[in-house]
């Protein structure tokens, strides 16, 4: 049961449709410029499967707020502050070269957000919790304070396909229930259904 699978898949479309599995080398629908998203996926000791979707942006290294600021996950508030100040000075649009202004502004905003989250102990805790769950929601706004709103947004596209398959599972289950194989071990409900159908 304790095995690890690491699969490199194609980026998942927002609609939740799956793309051809890369093993076949079929044409991908991604543009080359965008680096692949990693879906690493392990089955843990209790059979609990976990997947971490790591969304990458231009800088492949910046996967989490911690990585962006360059502090370890156990970094203290002081370290975070210092890192933020450094990066802010580097990327602030007012001090950037004119041709890098846009890119730097974007980076600056991200750095700002990382700092806001990590410097507030409550938000940091929530962010750490999300990371532990394996979903990195870097660079999405938490301003409303709903701690798993983003979680829901990221997953809603997945839900539809999941419940569709569950519904087909229900049909199968229903067929099984209609024709119970063991006559002596009927549930109360099965017994009533049998009587009703007589």
């Amino acid at each position, binding site marked *: 049961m304790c095995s690890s*699978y690491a*699969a490199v*898949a194609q980026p998942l479309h927002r609609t*939740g449709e*799956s793309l051809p*599995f890369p*093993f*076949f080398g079929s044409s991908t629908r991604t543009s080359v410029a965008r680096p692949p998203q990693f*879906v690493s*996926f392990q*089955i843990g000791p*209790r*059979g*609990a*499967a*976990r*997947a971490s*979707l790591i969304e990458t942006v231009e800088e492949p290294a910046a996967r989490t707020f911690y990585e962006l600021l360059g502090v370890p996950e156990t970094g203290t508030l002081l370290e975070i502050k210092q890192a933020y100040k450094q990066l802010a000075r580097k990327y602030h649009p007012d001090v950037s070269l004119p041709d890098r202004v846009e890119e730097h502004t974007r980076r600056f905003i991200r750095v700002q957000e990382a700092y806001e989250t990590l410097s507030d102990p*409550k938000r940091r805790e*929530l962010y750490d919790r999300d990371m532990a*769950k394996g*979903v990195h929601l870097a660079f999405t706004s938490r301003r*409303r*304070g*709903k*701690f*798993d709103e983003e*979680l*829901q947004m990221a*997953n*809603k596209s*997945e*839900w*539809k*396909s*999941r*419940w569709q*398959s*569950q*519904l087909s*599972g*229900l*049909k199968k*289950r*229903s067929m099984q*229930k*209609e024709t119970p194989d063991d006559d002596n071990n009927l*549930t*109360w*409900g*099965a017994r*009533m*259904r049998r009587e*009703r159908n007589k």
Partner: protein
Amino acid sequence: MASVATWDRSASSPYLQEQSGKEKVKWNFASLAERGEYFSEKPPTPLLDTIDYPIHMKNLSTKELKQLADEPRSDVIFNVSKTGGHLGSSLGVIELTVAIHYVFNAPQDRILWDVGHQSYPHKILTGRRNMMPTLRQTDGLCGFTKRSESNYDCFGAGHSSTTISAGLGMAVGRDLQGRKNHVVAVIGDGAMIAGQAYEAMNNAGYLDSDMIVILNDNKQVSLPTANLDGPIPPVGALSSALSRLQSNRPLRELREVAKGVTKQIGGSMHELAAKVDEYARGLISGSGSTLFEELGLYYIGPVDGHNIDDLTAILKEVKSTKTTGPVSIHVVTEKGRGYSYAEKAADKYHGVAKFDPATGKQFKSSTPTQAYTTYFAEALIAEAEQDNIIVAIHAAMGGGTGLNLFDRRFPTRCFDVGIAEQHAVTFAAGLACEGLKPFCAIYSSFLQRAYDQVVHDVDLQKLPVRFAMDRAGLVGADGPTHCGAFDITYMACLPNMVVMAPADEAELFHMVATAAAIDDRPSCFRYPRGNGIGVELPPGNKGIPLEIGKGRILLEGERVALLGYGTAVQSCMTAAALMEPHGLQLTVADARFCKPLDQGLIRRLANSHEVLITVEEGAVGGFAAHVAQFMALDGLLDGKLKWRPLVLPDRYIDHGSPADQLMEAGLTSHHIAATVFNILGKAREALQIMS
């Protein structure tokens, strides 16, 4: 495309015309409000106007259904803004309600709403739309589901976590009688915390009867309500289990891997993939989806609870599947959805007073005194400042019990166990075993479900757990489901329990101190919903422990004595004032303790007066019964004493304004005065004072 017929509801509705004295609700057709902005006048609801009962919905197209899905929303907002009530929960289930009534055929199909406070859209869609302005008022619509109100309300609710049990009962009853209707039980994630929900699911899985349980997951397990600094993450481990369900991505990925594997292996891909699919599902289910599957309910979800297409698709599928056994559908909703002020509020506007729809501001009348709830919290904080082994426990009612204030001051000493009163009591008992001083703040009517724990775990073992029973007596708009009528009866009959009740807020402070001081046995005190009367509070909010088993005399008089218990003493004082102009000086006494009784006081009153009347806001078997028992055994009833107990009548008092309820119960000061007149033979004065 169905033609949209609109008829003018405001003019023709007989109910609205009856309310001549009260403000008529006018539906002015303003332009349709944009999402998030509300005008003071209700936007038009063309589709909803054509629907009186669910059967009128059956011919709507999917496009119309989508449009319809938003109309009850404005109805709910504008109605609740005028009457007050539970807003957030109803807003979260608008789409769900529309979908359920569209797919199923109530009332043949049984739809059950747990607690019932989210049933406003259900009521709107089932023939009670024009009565919504009377919501929670005397003789008006009940704020919860009520069987006697409508055929569409299958099961009355008010307390939580009962729907799966009742639904299972209805499903089994249907099976035994050979009927074919559906049973749908809607229960929230907060209510799922209670043990009864598991008892029911366990039984449902075992019996395997067809029924549908809809888990309405809005991530609000506890009611923060007033005085909160920010949103609190849900209480308890179940919520993280539910979120894991929501974020459980691996199923898809595993199946992708599996499909890839089968392709590589070749062979009959379809079969193999299906088998791997089954296997994969089972693998994940073994740990992931869970609880429900382990208990025998087929799990479907999570589903976006605000997407009416998804909801109708799923419900239709499940309905059309012939034999399902018990099925659980996990629907994710947002409490307060569609009204931006509710969405942003920490308590999601769970329970609101009248408010202005355009701004979301509630009209809270300013009173010179605060609620007893607040006084209790302040008293407890003052005690806990001086004694660091005082802890507080509540069951998902931080705002309602005032313990949010305590939690802010002592975050590590306040325990919210979720909707689990039974656990709360035994948990408190465990704390008491370790030498702590637990204060269990649970509403009088909610403590009913923990009665065995009170008897067996606390009282029998004589553990010093303190019970602070808020909402004792009649509670107004919430009605009989929340009425704390029975706590005197069920507490005072326990051998080891000290039972007391404050007459006003100052006494409440003293009783909190008294309870904190009682360390060798359990104790309890009850106080009503409402505000204090304005007596002077003890300095620093610190009460002084009272002498146990001693009452006090407030007014010295002759011939007639009124012995009040709890805030009924206030009515007694008013009654005495009413009788003064008639030349009668009444004695008014405050019993303070029901157990142990102030025997000396009762003897004194019985021996020196002709008439003794006890007054309490509780059912028969309470304070009056204990006094009667004592007097009988003491020989005080062998003489010429005229003894009358005034208690709540032996019936349930419907919801309404507190004043109306008190009138209905016959416990107003006028009633007391009339009783005195009647006993003294002055029938004429009795009638006069009652008119």
